[in-house]
């Protein structure tokens, strides 16, 4: 029983990290139909920014990392995505792929291919016993911060004028514009919020792994995208739900797969997702045609 509880705690922590990544991607998809594969590169830039500013006190480092990543997100919107706004999904997808490769190549050029290592949030690198379970202090931080951010995002979308405009744009971008919603502001805000989520995900990811490479963004963006599809396209809370379910599947298979089958863990995770989608083709919480934030 304690082993199951331990695995549930592990899944909650991993799911929170996945949720941070998935929400950053889901936000842009909801508003402009963009599956931003360059989101992984924002996380990667956040990772490298952590190394650049490592000598500063952590609070200052975190602020600077957020500023760099949000700045890069806004630059992506202005320089790459604004000119293709309203284009087909394929065009947006190809643009995001191209941007992803461009950014990754740029970082490779300046930072080199060698993996780098960093000790981020090292003070949280210990575990505490809670009701017989061993829980890392970093896990507490990830779970807590994600919960606060989820609630904060929900409040922002429901209680602020800009949030309401974003929800309106997600429902029907063209009509929302006709009713006076400022498209540039709404989209830029979405990129800014998405960038903030990427920055926080980068901090926790590097704190958890201790290493970074120019290719480190690929895995998170795939995980985020799968979580969105699993939860249900177009709903932010569903993306978070998908992230937690994906993490649960991953942790349980890691814990209980027999040794001989363990190398196929990923294949089995995705097999599980395919089976869920067979019964829920629009995702666990999705509805046909539903695109909301």
């Amino acid at each position: 029983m304690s082993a199951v509880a331990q695995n549930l705690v592990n899944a909650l922590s991993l799911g929170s990290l996945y949720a941070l990544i998935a929400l950053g991607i889901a936000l842009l998809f909801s508003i402009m139909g963009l599956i931003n594969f360059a989101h992984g590169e924002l996380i990667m830039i956040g990772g490298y920014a952590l190394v650049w500013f490592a000598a500063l006190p952590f609070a200052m480092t975190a602020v600077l990392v957020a500023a760099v990543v949000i700045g890069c997100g806004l630059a992506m919107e202005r320089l790459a995505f604004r000119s293709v706004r309203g284009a087909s999904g394929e065009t947006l997808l190809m643009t995001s792929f191209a941007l992803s490769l461009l950014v990754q190549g740029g970082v490779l050029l300046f930072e080199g291919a060698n993996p780098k290592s960093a000790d981020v949030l090292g003070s949280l690198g210990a575990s505490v016993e809670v009701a017989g379970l061993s829980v890392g202090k970093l896990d507490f931080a990830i779970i807590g911060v994600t919960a606060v951010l989820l609630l904060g995002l929900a409040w922002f979308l429901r209680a602020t004028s800009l949030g309401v405009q974003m929800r309106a744009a997600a429902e029907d971008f063209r009509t929302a514009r006709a009713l006076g919603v400022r498209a540039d502001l709404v989209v830029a805000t979405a990129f800014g919020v998405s960038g903030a989520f990427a920055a926080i995900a980068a901090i926790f990811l590097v704190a958890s792994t201790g290493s970074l490479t120019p290719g480190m963004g690929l895995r998170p963006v795939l995980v985020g995208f799968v979580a969105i599809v699993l939860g249900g396209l177009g709903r932010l809370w569903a993306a978070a739900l998908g992230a937690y379910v994906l993490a649960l599947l991953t942790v349980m298979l890691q814990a209980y797969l027999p040794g001989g089958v363990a190398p196929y863990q990923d294949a089995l995770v995705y097999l599980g997702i395919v089976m869920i989608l067979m019964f829920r083709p629009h995702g666990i919480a999705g509805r046909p045609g539903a695109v909301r934030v």
Partner: protein
Amino acid sequence: MRRTVLLLTAGILGLTVAAGCGAPGDDSGASSAEAELPDGPIVIGMAVARSGFAAAYDLGPSRGAELAVADINARGGVLGHRLELKYGDTKSDRALGTTVGIDLLSRGAKVMFVTCDFDLGGPAAIAATSKKVVAVSPCAGSSQFDVPTLGPLAYSMGTKSAAGATNVARFAYDQGYRKAYLWRDPSITHTKETCAAFESTFSAQPQAKVVGSDTIQQKDASFAGLIARLRASGADVLELCSYNPGAVTALRQLRAAGVDIPVVSNMSMDGDYWLKGVPDLKDFYYDAFGSLYGDDPRTDVNDFFARYKTKFGERAVTSYALTGYATVQVIAKAIETAQTTGGPALAKAIDGLGSYETIAGPTGYGAKQHIVTDRPSVILSVAGGRTSPVATYTGGRKTKEG
């Protein structure tokens, strides 16, 4: 449309004919095989990654080769011929390995120096050996970099993964550890062979056994479940058969979870560039070609790394740089013996060198074994942010303290 198709067909035919004529194929290949010695310098083709992810791994051995060439040329070259390195960039792309290899042959390469990995170095090696030119990888550890897979003209200066793991297993046993747990990373042949050899050697020791194992993956973001199983197993040592960046993640989470049993690993953990990711790491051991920190038991190794730093303005990242130097040492000696660069004769000379002393330790090949199996492993210990040698093992036996 028809015109386009015709033009395309003609173009493809033209390219094919041109490739057939221009490739260093029949004529130059045959001349390579039968070559005595060229009039000018002896060219060593460097079919290595100078960009992309593998560039970091090829840099050290390539620079090591440059130092060796400088030393040999300063002594008058080989049989009066200067050695010259000509570079081609495989861009860390398997598919480009063949193209770069062929290009270097056409630029006069008489011996080919290829990437430190079977998958990435194999194509250029095959391009060379198919034209009867000897190819050497400075540090590929996979058992596939050997005669059965690549033929009689391909060599690896690397230590066979299993040989290093055997030394590490014996070291672990000598340290008093009796219950080992394995974390197997199946993503590359080197780590698979490392774990298999560790398991067989360690289990064969009296009162020693492997109490459990798990599969780990490079992309795992969380090792929590595996750490719980390791903790429950009662193991007194963990064999980490993995490489970076995944290995850093595993170690960081292991220590953060409060599991402080000793960890032994393999030579892909060489270098201290990753230590920041696991602060205050201790009780961590791995095998390497040597220590690059100036405290190796061998003076020539310490001199090599000092010269490396002086020439290139930075310290070597790993001790793999030694293998580049050793590769050129072996090639030069074999050319002197064979009096030719022709592949079959040169290979025969390499096979006949016996236990030849190089900067990376004694290196020996046979007609059916073209990867090093009995080179000494320097066991390095990480503690207090410092990496230092604690022992030298050869063939599963301790041969030196420190």
